[in-house]
């Protein structure tokens, strides 16, 4: 059997096959407690699939996921949420018929049975992500940036230890990104480990202490952001074959 | 048993329209049974008022129902549902309520039937005697299926329909008028019903709720044959026809239908993609 891993979250040689397509192939990595860790990679690299596996929405074809030493592979999402793993979605999914307050309260109800408590928690969380003024609006009426915050707040309201963020910055303009980066950092400083898929490289460099790079379903590099961007394999994955040598040539 | 097979072909025809509409529009048409009822009343009126033999009535009724189906989809279901699954469900339910009860208001709840000279005639097939109307129904159902197949594969309209079924947005991008194609498909579905109604009439009764007896059967066939599959619908129809006659034989008339409902529930619960392995 697999030995308990000291790491907070560890993924062991996970593969996922859809029909003939190998979306994720033998991926292994860890996320350290208290960190902000990033998962980056070009489009179609399998990031979202990997995320879906970690959050219980997909079962891996092979491999395991360990959470504080415990096997959680294939455990359904609602149980993972109870265990302290929450996620957001790339395409934000607010509950359209509900107000912002009620949206966040759905998350808060996980650990608070009573409505009054859940609402109170929801309001606190809204404060943390900067939604206090929008509490009574219907969630569907918010801007994209506002909805991203709701998405974040809903997940936070479940009281997670690990927060999985699926491209929470995508679709935002630079000033909106600048606004939300400190929010994410404050979440981590509040004791919640953050693991994020991200496309916006600038933000990744800024926020993450560790980065894993996925390309064509494989983890091709890992380390600090500075190490990763210098890695020729990463440059090739993003810019195409031979790009690394060409770039090196230019700089020489 | 063989009679079941023969009736099954007509079931298949009813299901054909349903599966076509599902395959292309991806909607479940609850009004399908009511449209069949309407077609049967139309055939009945054609016989009663104009003295048209039901088989002859196919000729005027097919274009009439094509137009009707076209109009209903284009001007009622399409705009009212605004593309939402649950709305389509409700709108087609509303349609079926309207049609069914209009028939009830006009013709009352009595069952009506036509008297044609050949209703009781039989065809000898080796040792077996088969009802003449059923044999005709069987034959025509296959002809219609064949015509439909040719229409879908050989004509421009058919190609447009299949394009829309496969990739709606793509089809719209290359200039296919999707709403038109939807309405055409719905029209073809209704035309199939017109044929089925004329084939049924010589050996079946008409009442405002007669379509209900067929609609669950048709749904069963469609899920059995795989949603959207034309050969699946015919095969499923034959299968269900046999099941019905067998379960009627074993359980008696009152319980006979239950076999179909149970198959329907089981297939939905365990094989929603159909037994004859349709597309995913």
């Amino acid at each position: 059997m697999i030995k308990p891993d000291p790491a907070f979250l560890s993924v062991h040689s996970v593969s996922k096959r859809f029909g003939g397509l190998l979306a994720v192939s033998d991926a292994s990595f860890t996320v350290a407690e208290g960190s902000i860790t990033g998962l980056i990679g070009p489009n179609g690299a399998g990031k979202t699939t990997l995320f879906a596996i970690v959050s219980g929405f997909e079962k891996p074809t092979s491999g395991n996921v360990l959470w504080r030493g415990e096997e959680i592979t294939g455990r359904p999402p609602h149980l993972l949420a109870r265990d302290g793993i929450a996620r957001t979605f790339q395409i934000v999914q607010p509950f359209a018929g509900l107000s912002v307050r009620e949206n966040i309260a759905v998350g808060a109800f996980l650990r608070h049975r009573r409505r009054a408590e859940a609402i109170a928690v929801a309001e606190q969380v809204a404060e943390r992500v900067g939604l206090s003024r929008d509490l009574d609006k219907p969630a569907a009426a918010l801007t994209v940036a506002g909805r991203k915050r709701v998405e974040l707040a809903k997940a936070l309201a479940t009281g997670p230890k690990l927060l999985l963020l699926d491209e929470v910055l995508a679709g935002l303009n630079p000033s909106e990104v600048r606004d939300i980066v400190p929010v994410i950092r404050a979440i981590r400083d509040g004791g919640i480990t953050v693991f994020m898929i991200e496309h916006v490289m600038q933000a990744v460099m800024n926020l993450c202490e560790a980065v894993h790079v996925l390309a064509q379903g494989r983890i091709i590099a890992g380390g600090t952001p500075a190490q990763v961007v210098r890695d020729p394999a990463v440059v090739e994955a993003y810019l195409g074959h031979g790009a690394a040598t060409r770039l090196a040539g230019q700089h020489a | 048993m063989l009679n079941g097979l023969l009736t099954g072909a007509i079931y298949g025809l009813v299901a054909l329209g349903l599966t076509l509409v599902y395959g292309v529009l991806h909607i479940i048409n609850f009004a399908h049974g009511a449209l069949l009822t309407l077609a049967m009343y139309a055939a009945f009126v054609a016989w009663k008022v104009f003295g048209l033999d039901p088989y002859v009535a196919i000729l005027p009724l097919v274009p009439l129902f094509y137009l009707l189906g076209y109009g209903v989809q284009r001007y009622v279901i399409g705009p009212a549902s605004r593309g939402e699954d649950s709305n389509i469900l409700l709108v087609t339910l509303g349609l079926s309520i309207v049609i069914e009860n209009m028939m009830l208001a006009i013709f009352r709840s009595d069952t009506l039937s036509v008297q044609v000279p050949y209703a009781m005639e039989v065809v000898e097939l080796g040792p077996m005697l088969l009802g003449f109307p059923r044999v005709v129904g069987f034959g025509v159902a296959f002809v219609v299926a064949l015509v439909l197949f040719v229409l879908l594969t050989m004509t421009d309209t058919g190609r447009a329909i299949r394009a829309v079924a496969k990739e709606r947005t793509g089809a719209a991008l290359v200039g296919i008028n999707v709403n038109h194609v939807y309405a055409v498909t719905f029209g073809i579905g209704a035309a199939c019903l017109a044929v089925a109604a004329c084939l049924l009439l010589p050996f079946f009764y008409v009442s405002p709720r007669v379509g209900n007896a067929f609609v669950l059967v048709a749904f069963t066939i469609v899920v059995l044959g795989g949603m959207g599959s034309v050969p699946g619908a015919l095969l499923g129809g034959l299968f269900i026809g046999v099941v019905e006659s067998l379960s009627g034989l074993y359980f008696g008339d009152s319980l006979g239908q239950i076999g179909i409902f149970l198959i329907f529930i089981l297939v939905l619960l365990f094989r929603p993609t159909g037994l004859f392995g349709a597309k995913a």
Partner: protein
Amino acid sequence: MSTRDLVPILVFAAVAALLPVFVTANTWLNFAVFTLIICLAAQGWNILGGYGGQYSFGHAAFFGTAAYATAILQVRYGVNPYLGFGFGIAAAAVVGWIIGALSFRSGLRGSYFALVTLAFAEVFRVLANASEMTGGAAGILIRLDVRPENFQFASRATFYWIALALVVAALVVTRALERSRLGAQLVAVRENESAARALGVDALQVKLSAIALSAAITGAAGALYAQYFLYLDANIAYGTWISVEALLAPIIGGAGTVFGPVLGGIILHGLSEFTKSLVGRIPGVDLVIFGILLIVVVRFPPREIPGLIRMWRGRR
């Protein structure tokens, strides 16, 4: 749930309770009781369909099960009708839970869920039509024996108040649901099931609770029907008509709102009486109008009438 949440319900209850004081004609009270029974059945549908977004086309399965359960217990086993009423509701809830467990576990939703519930109701109908226990096609008759302890009353007004009490109870339950964790989770599942699951909502469990509660309330309507009309057959108890009525009223009155089903029930049956007075008793005409109304309501959102009124007020 705070007292303020209950005020509109209490106002409704008080106003409605006064009706028999002004209206004494039996035909009108009959009409009122029947409308209340439909409202109750619709309130049940509203829990699962309105709040949960799972459109059942087969609520007759619950209506009929409770109706037959209370009638059979009373007629064949001499069980007290009040007790039988409770058993009927419980039986409906169990049937709801089982149908829910089978269909939700298989991941059926949308049109498929509608179809499978319709088929279940039809299975029940065919069985009830053939079984000895239910009296087969001849139906089952509860003996007339007018005694209050026998759930039979000399005055129709008494029955009206009982029906009203049940409708009010269902209003309170619905309001409480809205204010509860289950209610929030149910709406979340309706709006987006995977997003709800990510927030720790056990979607299957939530839907099962909803269908059991929904079935229980519609079951209460069925049991009430049996005790009021004292006769059942398969086409009444398990007929498509009740599935359709239970669905039409909330859709027209506002699905997923506390008062929607009651409002819709009153509108539909008021309309039906009105057409009868206009065109006479031509069968089906009222239903034609219901059908058209359904299409119109789906076509022109906002579908809730309170919403329309608010819009109309706003415009003035």
